[in-house]
């Protein structure tokens, strides 16, 4: 198993390199460093300040190969950027100049406080509802439920948030509409509404997916055997369908586990939660290209981590699978 995972990691190297190349082309070739400086510093920037900004960040080096006599050929923007990312040096913010490692580290906890409960809750709720639908097996209820799921999926996230924030916080005056505090009992108060909204906005898709998984399990031979033995429907569902369906389900959802760190772009901004989603949102508005570039790199690492987790999960959940 260890050997397998090591080999998997080895195969990730070209993909990480590809992502690095992609971000370089996007942020340094399609948009020249000069243009970046002008957009970050604004219209009124003097040529001198643009030059300083570029020099301070090392963006004034030649693009691919340094032809200047007396300088080594590898003293170029491309080599520097690649080396920087390869050593996990995320650089500094274009706008505030703060080291990005610090900025990101600060956002992890608030993001996780929002996404982790929402993730667990939506799986629990989704599994419960899907099992119930499989249990009653009624044509009318099935049609109504699938219509309702599609309807839930068709509402854009921001509409959920705007309506939710308006109705619960402004009309009913129930929860704080905005803000965040990392201290004891006031934190859940701020997080309750965003967590609920996150669960609701994803519920339609979850129930649909889980129901399909459980229905597939219902069609298996061992279910027929269990029924023929005289096992009751509830027992079949709990002992067989749920247990076997959960294996597929866990391997499916585990890939999105690393992304919980990234938080939620829209929700965090709406509710003023200082997580990574908010960092990114602010960077988009600024614009702060360094933050976006670093997020792309980190995001791809998280994705690959998710793939690895899925493999491990498969082997753990299904003993027939040996990773070699």
């Amino acid at each position: 198993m260890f050997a397998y995972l090591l080999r998997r990691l080895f195969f990730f190297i070209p993909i990480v390199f590809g992502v690095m190349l992609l971000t370089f082309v996007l942020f340094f070739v399609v948009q020249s460093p000069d243009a970046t400086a002008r957009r970050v510093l604004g219209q009124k920037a003097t040529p001198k300040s643009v030059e300083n900004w570029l020099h301070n960040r090392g963006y004034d080096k030649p693009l691919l190969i340094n032809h200047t006599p007396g300088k080594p050929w590898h003293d170029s923007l491309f080599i520097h950027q690649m080396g920087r990312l390869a050593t996990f040096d995320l650089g500094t913010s274009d706008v505030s100049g703060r080291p990005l490692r610090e900025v990101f580290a600060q956002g992890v906890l608030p993001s996780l406080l929002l996404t982790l409960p929402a993730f667990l809750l939506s799986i629990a709720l989704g599994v419960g509802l899907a099992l119930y639908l499989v249990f009653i097996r009624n044509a009318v209820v099935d049609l109504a439920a699938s219509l309702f799921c599609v309807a839930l999926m068709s509402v854009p996230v921001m509409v959920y948030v705007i309506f939710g924030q308006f109705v619960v916080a402004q009309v009913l005056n129930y929860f704080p509409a905005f803000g965040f505090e990392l201290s004891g009992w006031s934190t859940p108060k701020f997080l309750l509404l965003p967590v609920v909204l996150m669960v609701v906005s994803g519920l339609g898709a979850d129930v649909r997916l889980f129901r399909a998984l459980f229905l597939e399990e219902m069609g298996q031979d061992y279910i027929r055997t269990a029924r023929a033995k005289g096992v009751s429907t509830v027992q079949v569902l709990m002992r067989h369908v749920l247990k076997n369906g959960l294996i597929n389900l866990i391997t499916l959802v585990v890939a999105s586990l690393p992304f919980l760190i990234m938080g939620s772009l829209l929700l965090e901004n709406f509710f003023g939660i200082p997580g990574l989603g908010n960092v990114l949102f602010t960077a988009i508005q600024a614009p702060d290209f360094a933050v976006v570039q670093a997020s792309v790199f980190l995001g791809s690492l998280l994705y690959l981590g998710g793939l690895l987790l899925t493999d491990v999960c498969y082997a753990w959940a299904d003993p027939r699978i040996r990773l070699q």
Partner: protein
Amino acid sequence: MKSLDQIWVQNLSLLTGYSLLAGLIFWGARSERWRSAWRRLKGDTVGLISFAVILVYLLIGTLESIAVPSASGSRSLLQQLTRSIPQETSYAAPLASTALSLSDPKPLKSRHLLGTDALGRDTFVQTLRATRSALWIGGLTSLIYIPLGVLLGMMAGYYKGWVDDLVQYVYSTVAAVPEILMLVSILMVLGKGLGSMSIALGITGWVGMARLIRGETLRQVERPYIAAAKAMGQSNWKIITRHLLPNVMHLVLIKFVLGFSGLVLAEAVLSYLGVGAPVGTASWGTMIDASRSELSREPLVWWNLTAASSALFVMVLALNLFGDSLRRAFDPKQGA
């Protein structure tokens, strides 16, 4: 893209898009699989209703997309048809006779079915006009990602070997970047606009299509008809276009319809984030963005948000339901 605003470019590309779609359907209609799917679809009430709703949206979007010459350059056919509705100076509630102001409720020029926005424009007309952005994003992006994804997917599945490795490597790399980050980075660099939004969505969108088509192609090449075509000495290219393509085309159609709803939603979210539709282009995303502050006004302004999100919701819902109906019609065994 500025060129979209020129009369003839706009009308011509509209015509091209529709002829492509019509060609696809006529070409597909020759096969027995498509005909039996159509027969099944005719008995599917939900599918037919959602199809009718999509047609209404298509009609509205087309009216807004056809440019006609006018005194001030050009205007859309929809603007021409609704020119009798006057513009007010500020907010007006639905069907109200006076402007929305506590201190100075002036009489309005006319009543407005869904009220007016901050600039006094009729909300109903604005909502209808925004259909164009959604349809253009869906259409243009589909024109980019479908040919790319289908071609690369079929080549990977048919040739296997290094072609497959290369295609898989490229799409794994693109898929490794979370979609929203990819979209935002591309749009930040390319700038706002319907054209750049389509390019960005096309770059992220082809991955799913290529994966789907590659998988199906791998299954199809094992079938005897491919071996027969090879034995008859047909060239690889002919096998791909004449034999493989018709057999994966129904998957493309289903993915196209379901993908369209995702694209319409993406357009709204990106416009909301401020990297999507440019200023001055009617879009449901920008309408929702603008209405965010209106909910805290006194008196409350709710009609802009409601109109834009309902229009968006109904369109996405119709596309999702119709896509599901199509899938059931093409593959009755799989069920819901």
